[in-house]
């Protein structure tokens, strides 16, 4: 029996159409819109001005505080304006618009990066480099990595878990990255082992990616302390708390972090970004994005520059098919519908999903029939129907007592509800208000 987390979980159709498509390099976009708030925490501060010439990898916005991150120019070109552009939040946000210099060869030449095994930097330098290169968690939450790795002295830390689960349906970005850059990822893991003085690492991969599991088993054969764990296919196994529970059997406390039970979790994409930052001093200016959808002509995985408008990606896969109803930034479960195709790719964009008319409708919300399905599937052991009612009626204090804040917003409850009730919508709303109330109290 394969390992998994015990509470709840669902198994939506996988639809991993693009899992056999190699990662292609996207044509360099003519214009990039780089938002300054791509990570959780304080937005970065812009350090360039209109008409400035920028090089690839130049810092264009500096980290604005402790929980923040640097942002680098993904292309060589000219800053044309600092404008407000709708990003995936659905609101206009400050962006740096850079026009790519078509004559600058550095934009178009393909840099060959052979595998570099030996790690020269010292642990402190490694953390500094990660900070400088603006690495954030690429699994979707975009939490600045240096904050996660900044372990206070005295904290017991014995495991590093590498998240290669990719439990979201449709998405294959991490899967392809693991297949194509397995050796680099292992070096990346060693970098972190050195930085954190760790001895034990587990790479968690769901069993629907057998090729990746076998490949890693081969690559790490000789290494000490790194293991691969094949996991049962179940959503939301990619959630930190679920993954720690599945692999190590440790329960992360209610409002705590994996660090409280001596574990740090990092996504494979982040590990690869760390590898590039340490070995090649390359900042985080591009990432793997899966562009997928059942009706697309040519769905695939791409290396995409941060700030590329989504319309360029759509054009790359053959344009929007007829009958498209919804565009989702991310996977179908946790992704967010986007407002128009000018929305730029950010550090947290793992996929663009094109949903057709027949799949996009939500169904009319009916009364709760008390079937208890939502309680059964909740991976956090909450009662979604109750939390929804509480936030709908404005009983935020009670909702807070019912642990509304521990909800990981995986959407399993809304997925299984036979009455199509908007459970997650209301829970998210309640969480927002509870968070506001809590901050105003402190």
């Amino acid at each position, binding site marked *: 029996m394969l390992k998994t987390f015990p509470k709840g979980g669902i198994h939506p159709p996988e639809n991993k159409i693009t899992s056999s498509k190699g990662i292609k390099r996207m044509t360099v976009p003519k214009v990039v819109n780089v938002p300054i708030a791509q990570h959780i925490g304080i937005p970065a501060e812009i350090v360039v001005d209109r008409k400035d010439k920028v090089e690839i990898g130049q810092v264009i916005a500096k980290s604005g505080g402790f929980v923040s991150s640097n942002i680098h120019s993904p292309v060589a070109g000219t800053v044309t304006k600092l404008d407000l552009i*709708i990003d995936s939040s659905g609101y206009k946000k400050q962006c740096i618009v850079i026009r790519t210099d078509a004559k600058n060869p550095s934009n178009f030449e393909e840099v060959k990066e052979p595998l570099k095994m030996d790690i020269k930097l010292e642990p402190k330098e490694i953390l500094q480099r990660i900070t400088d290169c603006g690495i954030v968690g690429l699994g979707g939450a975009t939490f600045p990595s240096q904050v996660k790795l900044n372990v206070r002295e005295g904290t017991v830390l014995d495991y590093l878990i590498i998240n290669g689960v990719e439990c979201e349906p449709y998405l294959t970005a991490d899967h392809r990255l693991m297949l194509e850059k397995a050796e680099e990822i292992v070096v990346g893991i060693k970098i972190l082992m050195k930085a954190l003085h760790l001895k034990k690492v587990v790479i968690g991969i769901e069993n629907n990616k057998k090729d990746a599991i076998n490949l890693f088993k081969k690559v790490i054969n000789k290494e000490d302390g790194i293991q691969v764990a094949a996991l049962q296919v179940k959503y939301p196994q990619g959630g930190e708390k679920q993954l720690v529970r599945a692999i190590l059997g440790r329960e992360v406390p209610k409002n705590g972090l994996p660090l409280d039970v001596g574990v740090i979790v990092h996504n494979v994409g982040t590990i690869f970004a760390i590898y590039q930052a340490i070995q090649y001093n390359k900042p985080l200016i591009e990432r793997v994005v899966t562009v997928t959808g059942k009706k697309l002509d040519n769905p695939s995985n791409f290396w995409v520059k941060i700030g590329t408008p989504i319309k360029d990606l759509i054009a790359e896969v053959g344009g929007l098919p007829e009958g498209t109803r919804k565009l989702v930034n991310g996977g179908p479960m946790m992704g967010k519908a986007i407002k128009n195709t000018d929305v730029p790719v950010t550090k947290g964009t793992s996929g663009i999903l094109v949903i057709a008319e027949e799949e996009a409708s939500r169904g009319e919300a009916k009364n709760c029939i008390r079937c208890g399905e939502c309680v059964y599937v909740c991976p956090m052991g909450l009662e979604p129907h109750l939390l929804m009612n509480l936030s709908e009626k404005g009983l935020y204090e009670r909702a807070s007592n019912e642990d509304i804040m521990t909800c990981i917003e995986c959407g399993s409850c809304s997925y299984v509800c036979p009455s199509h009730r908007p459970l997650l919508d209301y829970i998210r709303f309640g969480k927002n208000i509870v968070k506001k109330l809590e901050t105003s109290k402190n």
Partner: protein
Amino acid sequence: MTDSVLYSVLLLVSLGVIAAIVLYIVSKKFYVYENPLIADVDELLPGANCAGCGSPGCKSFADKLVNTEDISELFCPVGGNDVMKMVAELLGKEVAEKDPTVAVLRCQGGCDVRPKTTEYQGPRTCAISAMVYGGETDCQYGCLGDGDCVKVCKFDAMYMDKTTGLPVIITDNCTSCGACVEECPRDIIEMRPRNKRDLKVFVGCLNEDKGGIAKKSCSVACIGCSKCEDICPKDAIVMVNNLAYIDPVLCTLCRKCVDVCPTHSIIETNFPPKKVKKVVEKKVEVKVAVVKEQIVTESKKSKTDA
């Protein structure tokens, strides 16, 4: 037979007496003194329990009025100055007179002028759709049209206009309790003074985008051209973030700004229809006069005929 009747009557009477004694003792022992003034003041208050004053209900507001020394800061928006004056007389305290206010909707972006560019499928409340994204149109400042303000209004002073998709405020019913202002996630409802005959001039837009973008998303948007600011004789109009704001205190309701606004985003309410300009009038007058004469004579004829 008579015994059982007698016993039951006696039993009930004694039970009653015991209960009366217990109740009497309890009411004496646990007596809580309440200032009788509170009940009197509560009587004067409108009893709407709308919480517009800041207290949860009229009773607690009455309590507050009686127990605070200086009540000049307290105000019942529903009762207005009349009620506050009566309360002040009763309590022998001083109250500050406030200009009556009324809620106005600072958005004119109906379906016809502000086209929808996306479709929202989630639950139909403004609070949630505001959390998710900027709304179904390209204007992220204007009305979301899901009617949270209407749901929260206790005085039937608002309804959703089905053709425009915007809420409408019935000024006569509005008590300016401020519930809708609180509820609106976009802050498009503003309390403005209820002038004589309910005359108001205000900017019906909150779009802070640059002119072109604003105009593209909504044809009656304020484009920040500052024409109104230039023409205002009282300097009552300020431009902040590409958006005009008319200060209700400085504004003398001269309506010069209304004419000059290129997108008609300044709203005037309850003014009598404007006279047509004199130059135009003169030219038309002759014809009108002739026509009128004809009509008059004709009608006279018909009358005499009859």
